[in-house]
């Protein structure tokens, strides 16, 4: 069998990119969709001892259908522990136990700050979005934030309309100055065109790899700031056969992941 089958769709590649960031034994706070798929791919491949939490209060759920929200009924039977927001967001996240948190948003800037509050001015929003939910504390306290966003200049702008969730705020030293937990912050931005990582000195997101079919020029044009490119830039590794078989045979036999194509993840 081909090590890298070429019949994958872009959301499958993105789910695999997320999965590869999860290390064995990680404690991961997940939402629905990409985060759950990524964490489960990791669990079934290289990270069998990774464990998942939902902010609603669930630890190690065993859902028999894909959860459509972090409060989904299918997360209840079989879980190892069920409490509430104080347990997961307080005892585990604020307590310092969470290694990985998934985040997404309508806008993400070069420092990995995220907007899920409003488009346009706060007092007179053109579009009022849901708000922080658990995103702000996850961005503030997860050791590694994994950000998933569509790649275009509107969603990766030079300036956010509203900073809901902290990345590296305004650059080096900002989190430290605010006495935020040490060794935390976003580690990667996975888009439908590329993988961005954060420069340890400038804290700016740079282009680390481009997905097959995309070019550095196209990605620079699709980014709202003058994005730096890694010296060792390479093509993103496509999904491996093993990753795809986990995704298609075990996690998502109805291939609900295709709905992300309709949402623009192409």
């Amino acid at each position, binding site marked *: 069998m081909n090590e890298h089958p070429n019949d994958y769709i872009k959301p499958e590649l993105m789910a695999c990119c997320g999965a590869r960031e999860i290390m064995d034994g990680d404690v991961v706070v997940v939402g629905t969709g990409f985060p759950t798929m990524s964490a489960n791919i990791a669990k079934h491949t290289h990270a069998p001892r990774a464990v998942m939490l939902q902010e*609603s209060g669930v630890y190690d759920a065993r859902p028999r259908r894909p959860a459509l929200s972090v409060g989904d009924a299918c997360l209840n039977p079989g879980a190892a522990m069920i409490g*509430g927001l104080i347990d997961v*967001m307080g005892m585990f996240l604020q307590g310092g136990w969470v290694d990985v948190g998934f985040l997404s948003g309508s806008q993400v800037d070069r420092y990995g700050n995220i907007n899920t*509050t409003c488009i346009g001015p*706060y007092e007179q929003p053109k579009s009022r979005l849901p708000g922080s*939910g*658990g995103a702000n504390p996850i961005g503030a306290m997860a050791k590694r934030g994994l950000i998933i966003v569509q790649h275009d200049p509107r969603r990766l702008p030079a300036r956010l309309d509203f900073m809901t969730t902290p990345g590296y705020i305004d650059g080096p030293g900002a989190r430290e100055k*605010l006495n*935020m937990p040490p060794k935390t912050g976003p580690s990667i931005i996975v888009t439908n065109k590329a993988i961005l990582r954060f420069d340890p000195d400038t804290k700016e997101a740079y282009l680390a790899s481009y997905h097959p079919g995309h070019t550095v020029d196209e990605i620079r044009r699709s980014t709202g700031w003058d994005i730096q490119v890694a010296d060792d830039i390479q093509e993103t590794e496509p999904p491996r056969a093993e990753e795809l078989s986990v995704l298609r045979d075990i996690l998502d036999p109805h291939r609900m992941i295709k709905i992300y194509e309709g949402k623009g993840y192409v």
Partner: protein
Amino acid sequence: MNKVMTMKEAVATHVQNNDFVYIGGYICRTPFSAVHEIIRQKKKGLTITRGNAADDFDMMIGAGVVRRFISTFISLGVYGLARCYRRSLEKCIPHKIEVEEYTNLSLPMMLMAGAMGMPFIPVKDLLGTDLMKIKGFLGENKYKLIDSPFDGKPVLVVPALNPDVGIIHVQQADENGNAQIWGIGGDCKYGANASKKVIVSCERIVSREVIGKDPSRTIVPDFKVVAVVEEPFASHPGYTPGFYDQDFGFGYLYKEASGTEEGFHAFLKEWVHDIPDRAAYIQHFIDRFGYAGYKKLQAKFDYGYPVSYEY
């Protein structure tokens, strides 16, 4: 003391105009029948709160009963942005509500502080973001950034919340109000206990003896409870573990209806104003979607091993 009453009596007696109301739920155990009754009784000027709000809060905002919202998040889940909430903030329809925004960590912590009689509580979120810059009706009391009295480092503290009344839906309670839950908790336990009094709706009323067979499940003791309402199917279109599943089809119906002002009001007329109580709601649901549609939502049973507290 037997506190059993109808939802109409509970809301009429214990929810006043301009009250600060905590309403529990996380799709799981949403007290939707209480929300409908609040709308039916045309309460005014309420301040509402909980972490991760959903369709029930959107409906109250659209119905005009809300003045202020201490918020972390509001959406219709898989069905996207909350339509009435958007109309209120973007177009002042029916009026612009005032919002004070926290997160799914800080707000539950503020309720926990309220439950414990603490004046405020330190949290590690919010820092460095525009959630610090934007202050709503709490003004300078939204938070304080202080130097820790212990090590002198900056620490953020947020105020305790003590709602006038807390409303929760639980699986079972006794006639006095000892309320038991299982499944996803959200901020229900702290929200209810932070409140000055609690209205409990439940799938079933059980005896005090049944409560005593598994007392670790009790989240609110009877001395805080002022009303107990036996209200099966009260969370619909949310769910109650062990009783019925979330109704995604109905969620879609609400999303479509709430997309326009007219659609929203037609929905309210059909499912709230023209319905006297939860029993009539269930009957109307069966009339609309058939008994099969109702039956389909009912939970399977898979009992665990009974626990023993004996010594």
